C-alpha cells in the first residue's frame, strides 16, 4: 500500500541560528526509515512523467521501488546507469522545475522528494559500499576533456565506461569546476565532490590539473601532437560581469567568482589559511540567482551582521532556487527587491563605505518574457556597507575561442554546436555545458556531457570502419 500522505518527509536541517555561523552542510539528509517511508509515496505510474523531467532521464520509479524495499545499493546501481554524479545532483539540482515538477503526486499535495531520495541513495553507497570499480575492456582510443566541471566529468565517465582512454585537463589545481570553487561547502561538501572524482579515477579516467588549455597546450596540439582522436570542451562560463558603475574598483568590491573562489576553493573561511578574505560587517550582494544566494550566505557565515541581496526585479522573478531563497531568509539575509545600484561609494582610503541605489518598478514584459524594471524618479538612497559582491552573471572565457582556429562562437562567446550531438564547427571537437549555453545548471551540463559522449563514441567508431 503506498504512503498516501500529501506531504513529503521533512528534510532534517541544522537550525538557522546555528548554521549561519558555520560552513557545515545545512541539509542533513534522510535516515533510512525516512527514505523508505518517502519512497512509498511513489505511485509507480505507467507513463513516468518524472523521468522525462530529468535531463539525463534517470529511471526514477525503478530506483525508488528499490529504496522502498530497503535495497539501497540496487537503487544506486539503477541511478548510475544514467547519472555519474548522484550525490551532487541530489543536492544541487533545481528538482522543483525538473523531475519533481512532473510528479503526479504534486497535482494534489507535494511531489515525491526525488532529489532527497537520490541523495540518500548516493550517500548510502559512498558511506557503506566499498566495491572495486568494474574493470572495463580498453578500446585503445584517446579522448581529451577540457574542464573538470559537471559536463566534463559526465562526458569522461560515460566514455571511460565504454573503454576509452580519457584524460581530463583542468586549469585550476583541483578538479570539479563550479562544484569546488562555486557552490559552497554548506550546500555541497567538497568531500562528496572528491569522492565522485575518485570514482572516475578508479575506472581509469586521468585528471591533469594546472593545465590551462589555450595557453599550456592548444586544442590543435591536443589533436595533432598528442593524438587525441576527439575533444570535448566543457570549459564553462567563468568570466564575471561587472555593472560598469562608478566605484566598482574600490577595495571591498568582489565579483561573486572571486569571493566564492577565495571562500570555497582556497578555504579562506578557515582560520590560519594562507588566502585572505575581507570579513565585512555589512555586505551588499547584487543579483538574484543561486550565485547571489551562495555569496550572501557565505558572507553571513564569515561574520557579517547585515547582508543585503539587491535585486532589480521583484521576488517573483528571482532566478535562484526556491529552497535556497528560503534558507537565505531563515539565516537572516535581508532582501531589497526592485532596487538597482548606481554607484559604489568609497572612503578616503578607497575602501567601500556604501552603495547608492535607486528604486525600480516593473514595466511591460521584455523579450525574455520578464517584466522590465524601470527606474523610479527621485528615488535615490544609500545603504551603508563595507563590501559589495557582484553576482550579475558570467559569460564563457574567450581563451579557447581565441586560440582555436575555425571554432565558431556566438557573439557573446558561447560555442556554437549541433544540439543533437554537441559537435562544433571543428571535426572531432565537441562542446557542452555553460561553454555553450552560458551560465545554466549542473544537471543541464551533465546532460550535455552525456549527449557528447554518445556522439564522440559514434564518431570514433564510424571512423574505424
Amino acid at each position, binding site marked *: 500500500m503506498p504512503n498516501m500522505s500529501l506531504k513529503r518527509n521533512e528534510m532534517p536541517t541544522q537550525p538557522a541560528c546555528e548554521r549561519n555561523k558555520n560552513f557545515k552542510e545545512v541539509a542533513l539528509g534522510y535516515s533510512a526509515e525516512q527514505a523508505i517511508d518517502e519512497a512509498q509515496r511513489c505511485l509507480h505510474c505507467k507513463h513516468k512523467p518524472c523521468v522525462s523531467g530529468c535531463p539525463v532521464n534517470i529511471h526514477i520509479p525503478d530506483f525508488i521501488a528499490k529504496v522502498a524495499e530497503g535495497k539501497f545499493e540496487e537503487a544506486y546501481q539503477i541511478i548510475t546507469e544514467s547519472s555519474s554524479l548522484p550525490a551532487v545532483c541530489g543536492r544541487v539540482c533545481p528538482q522543483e522545475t525538473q523531475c519533481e515538477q512532473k510528479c503526479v503526486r504534486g497535482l494534489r499535495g507535494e511531489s515525491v522528494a526525488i532529489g532527497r531520495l537520490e541523495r540518500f541513495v548516493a550517500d548510502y553507497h559512498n558511506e557503506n559500499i566499498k566495491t572495486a570499480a568494474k574493470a572495463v575492456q580498453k578500446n585503445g582510443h584517446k579522448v581529451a576533456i577540457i574542464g573538470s566541471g559537471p559536463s566534463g566529468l559526465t562526458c569522461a565517465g560515460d566514455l571511460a565506461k565504454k573503454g576509452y582512454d580519457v584524460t581530463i585537463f583542468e*586549469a*585550476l*589545481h583541483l578538479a570539479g569546476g563550479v562544484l569546488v570553487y562555486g557552490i559552497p561547502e554548506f550546500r555541497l561538501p567538497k568531500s562528496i565532490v572528491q569522492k565522485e572524482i575518485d570514482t572516475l579515477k578508479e575506472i581509469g579516467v586521468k585528471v591533469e*590539473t*594546472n*593545465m*590551462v588549455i589555450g*595557453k*599550456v*597546450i592548444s586544442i590543435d596540439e591536443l589533436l595533432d601532437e598528442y593524438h587525441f582522436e576527439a575533444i570535448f570542451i566543457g570549459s564553462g562560463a*567563468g*568570466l*564575471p560581469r*561587472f555593472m*560598469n558603475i562608478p566605484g*566598482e*574598483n574600490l*577595495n*571591498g568590491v*568582489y*565579483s561573486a*567568482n*572571486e569571493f566564492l*573562489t*577565495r571562500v570555497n576553493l*582556497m*578555504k579562506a573561511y578557515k582560520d*590560519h*589559511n*594562507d*588566502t*585572505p578574505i*575581507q570579513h565585512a560587517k555589512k555586505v551588499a550582494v547584487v543579483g538574484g540567482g543561486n550565485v547571489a544566494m551562495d555569496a550572501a550566505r557565505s558572507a553571513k557565515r564569515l561574520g557579517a551582521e547585515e547582508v543585503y541581496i539587491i535585486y532589480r526585479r521583484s521576488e517573483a522573478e528571482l532566478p535562484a532556487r526556491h529552497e535556497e531563497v528560503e534558507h537565505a531568509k531563515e539565516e537572516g539575509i535581508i532582501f531589497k527587491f526592485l532596487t538597482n545600484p548606481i554607484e559604489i561609494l568609497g572612503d578616503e*582610503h*578607497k575602501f567601500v563605505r556604501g552603495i547608492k541605489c535607486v528604486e525600480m518598478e516593473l514595466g511591460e514584459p521584455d523579450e525574455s518574457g520578464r517584466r522590465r524594471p524601470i527606474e523610479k524618479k527621485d528615488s535615490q538612497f544609500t545603504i551603508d556597507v563595507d563590501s559589495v559582491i557582484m553576482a550579475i552573471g558570467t559569460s564563457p*572565457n*574567450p*581563451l579557447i575561442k581565441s586560440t582555436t582556429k575555425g571554432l565558431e562562437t556566438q557573439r557573446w562567446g558561447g560555442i556554437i554546436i549541433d544540439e543533437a550531438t554537441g559537435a562544433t564547427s571543428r571535426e572531432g571537437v565537441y562542446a557542452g555545458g555553460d561553454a555553450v549555453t552560458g551560465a545554466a545548471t549542473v544537471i543541464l551540463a551533465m546532460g550535455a556531457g552525456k549527449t557528447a559522449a554518445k556522439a564522440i563514441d559514434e564518431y570514433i567508431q564510424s571512423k574505424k570502419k
Partner: protein
Amino acid sequence: MYKILKKKILNPTVTLMEIDAPFVAKKAEPGQFIILRVDKDGERIPLTVADFDREKGIVTIIFQVVGATTEKLNHLNEGDSICDFVGPLGVPSHVEGLKKVAVVGGGVGCAIAYPIAKKLHQLGANVHSIVGFRNKDLVILEDEFKVASDAFFMMTDDGSYGKKGLVTDALRELLENGEQYDEVIAIGPLVMMKFVCKLTKEYNIKTIVSMNPIMIDGTGMCGCCRLTVGGKVKFACVDGPDFDGHEVDFDESIERAKMYQPFERKAHEEVCNLFKKEVH
C-alpha cells in the same frame, strides 16, 4: 608536484629558483607569468617567468621574500617540490620591430625586466638598461643585464653603488641629452612605474609597464586583478600584465594593492614565528 632543481640566493631577500616544469618551459615567453602554490593549504601567487630552457624543461623564477608564502617558498631547498605551478599565463611582451629601447627595472622588478632586455638584445635592438636598487646589498642580475645591454646604468637610493639617485634621474638625463627611444619599458614598484610614465609623457615616448596586481586564478575567471586602462576595466592576468603606462590609473592600482595589508603582515609574522620554533 614540481621539483626545485636549483636555488640561488641573489641578495638577502631575493632568491632564484629553477623549477622542473616542462609544459610551462615549452611555451613561455618574456613578459608572461606563472601561478604557484607552495603546499596543499597554500595560496596561489603570481610570479613572472625570469628565464626558461625549453629543452631541459626548466623555468626560472625570482622572488622577493615579502610575506608568508614567499617566506615558505624561500625555506624550500634544491630537491624539494612545490605543489602547483601553472602557466605560462598572460600575454607575452611585444618586442618585435623595436630598434632602440630603454629598459627600466626597479628592485625585484629587474627579474622581469631582464628577460625582456635579453630578448630585445637577441632581436638586434639597441638596449639601454637602467636599474635601480635601495642599496648595494640588494643589487641583482647586474652581469646578466650588462651582457644584454648596449649601455647600462646602475642607480642606488643611497649612492652605495653605481650612481646615487632614482631610475627616473638616470632616464631624465639620457632624455635631456637627446637620446631617442622607440619605447621605454618600465618594470618595478607601482610608484616607480608611475613616475617613469610621468617623465616619458613629457617627452611623448610610448611606455610599457608590467602591472602586478593581486591575483588568484590568473586565468580571467575572477577579476581580482582588474585595473583601469584608458578609462576601461581590464584584467591584468589575461589582457596584460603589460599595458600602455600612459593609460594606466596608477593611483587606483596603488590603493588596490593595499587591500589585504593587515592580513598579510599578520600571516607573515605567524610563518616567521613558526620557522623560529622549528629551529629550537
